[in-house]
């Protein structure tokens, strides 16, 4: 009888984390080496130290820019989740709706939705609304598509079992179809979370007066590359936190689920 896998020991953890940490370190060293040997102008490539100093010196001005981007991203993401899951459920249960909506969904899937960002600016103005709309638009599709796939991907025997239990469709949905779709839904949420960050940033590039994306454009115009890179570092940290939060939520919601993990090499 197989037992569950034992937890990783500290030694295992070090062996797992060691190589990737070493790679990060090597990139940092290479960066510093280029700066020290080639001496490029600071607007082309500032040193890591210069970026860190700019991060600190900009200090009190960060929060409102960070919050603006975080707010737009989270709002866009949440709206995408609510509407995405909310649309997938009727699509799966109504063949007529599915026939009507699926071609449109597939078509819009192909359209580079980011390209709509300038129009959103025109339609919704400089404020948060246009940012939320762009974040929503790019994050929406992976949620709908993954949820719909998850709700349909079900063992036929499982459906026969459900029918033999002679229970209501609602019960089957709550107890079987929806939990069965959860790994797919969370897969969609992971993708959507990274896309929502991109959507919010692009909207800020196109037109905004606050936010990390706005700051990157300004820094670029002023050749303050260190500030731009510092903003990107914070943006990455936020993206990572959001993704990590979803992974955490996934673990809490599905303790029974084991996601295949491993490097790119594991997929080969």
């Amino acid at each position, binding site marked *: 009888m197989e037992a569950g896998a034992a937890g990783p020991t500290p030694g295992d953890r070090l062996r797992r984390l060691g190589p990737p940490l070493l790679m990060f370190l090597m990139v940092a060293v290479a960066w510093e080496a280029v700066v020290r040997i080639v001496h490029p102008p600071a607007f082309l490539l500032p040193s890591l130290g210069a970026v860190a100093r700019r991060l600190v010196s900009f200090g009190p001005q960060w929060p409102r820019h960070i919050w603006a981007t975080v707010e737009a991203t989270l709002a866009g993401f949440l709206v995408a989740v609510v509407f995405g899951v909310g649309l997938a459920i009727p699509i799966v249960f109504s063949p007529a709706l599915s026939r009507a909506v699926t071609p449109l969904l597939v078509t819009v899937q192909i359209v580079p939705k980011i390209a709509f960002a300038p129009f959103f600016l025109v339609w919704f103005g400089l404020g948060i609304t246009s940012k939320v709309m762009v974040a929503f638009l790019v994050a929406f599709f992976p949620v709908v598509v993954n949820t719909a796939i998850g709700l349909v991907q079900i063992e036929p*025997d499982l459906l026969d079992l459900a029918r*033999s239990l002679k229970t209501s469709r609602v*019960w089957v949905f709550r107890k079987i179809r929806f939990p*069965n779709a959860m790994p797919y839904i969370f897969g969609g949420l992971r993708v959507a979370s990274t896309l929502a960050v991109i959507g919010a940033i692009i909207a800020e590039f196109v037109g905004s007066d606050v936010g990390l994306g706005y700051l990157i454009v300004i820094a670029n115009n002023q050749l303050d590359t260190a500030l731009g890179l510092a903003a990107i570092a914070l943006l990455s940290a936020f993206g990572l936190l959001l993704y990590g939060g979803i992974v955490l939520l996934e673990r809490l919601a599905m303790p029974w689920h084991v996601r295949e993990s491993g490097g790119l090499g594991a997929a080969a």
Partner: protein
Amino acid sequence: MRAVGAFIDVEGVSKTYTARGKALEALEDIRFGVGQGEFVAIVGASGCGKSTLLKIVAGLLPPSRGAVRVEGRPVEGPLDGVGIVFQSPTLLRWRTVLGNVMLPGEARGMVAGPMRQTAVDLLKLVGLEGFEDRYPRELSGGMQQRVALSRALLLDPQMLLMDEPFGALDAMTREEMNLELLRIWEERRKTAVFITHSIAEAVFLADRVVVMTPRPGRVRDQVPIGLPRPRTLATRDTPQFTAHIRHIREQILSPAGTDRWAGGA
């Protein structure tokens, strides 16, 4: 051979599918009966419509012609009082072993307390005491099918329908599961219909073997198996056992009108 007034009566059941505008006959005029408490195995090559037949008996699929009666009443929808075990364990992987066994009760809105005790007792019966709180992925294939069997028995059904439940298991686990199934069946005495493509498995388990031939699926023969019970591994070494197997294999390989047989696929 058809038992008149049997517990389950399959009366001239045919099933025709339409694929690309062509009618495809999966089952043709199937007739047999299953007595109360009897163990009937249905054996045949893949594609002979065995699984379709089981679904029709369970009321999950309507026949194109003919009817199934259980205790004289025609089956018109999913049956009450039937436990089904499928080829795959069909466990809900987000539920513990105990939660899976209790599923049919929950679907009927039964009181959790007494049902829980029934589920615990059933898990003990199938040899999974102590595994109540495990998740399906932590169990081997054989253990998962034991859970599926417990689930099928939860509502104390009058009949147990099994669709190649051990087909995906390795040969040794399969033999072990056959013995377990007989032990449980002898204890609970359910009317049992067991689908398999293994002649040896059918002969070992059943009181009677219904032999089917494919395209369209037809009943070729019904073979009473007189082997004494309880059956053990030694039963497999008896001359009667071997003789039954030889007879059934001949029925499957050379049905009347040999031209009809076109391979096992």
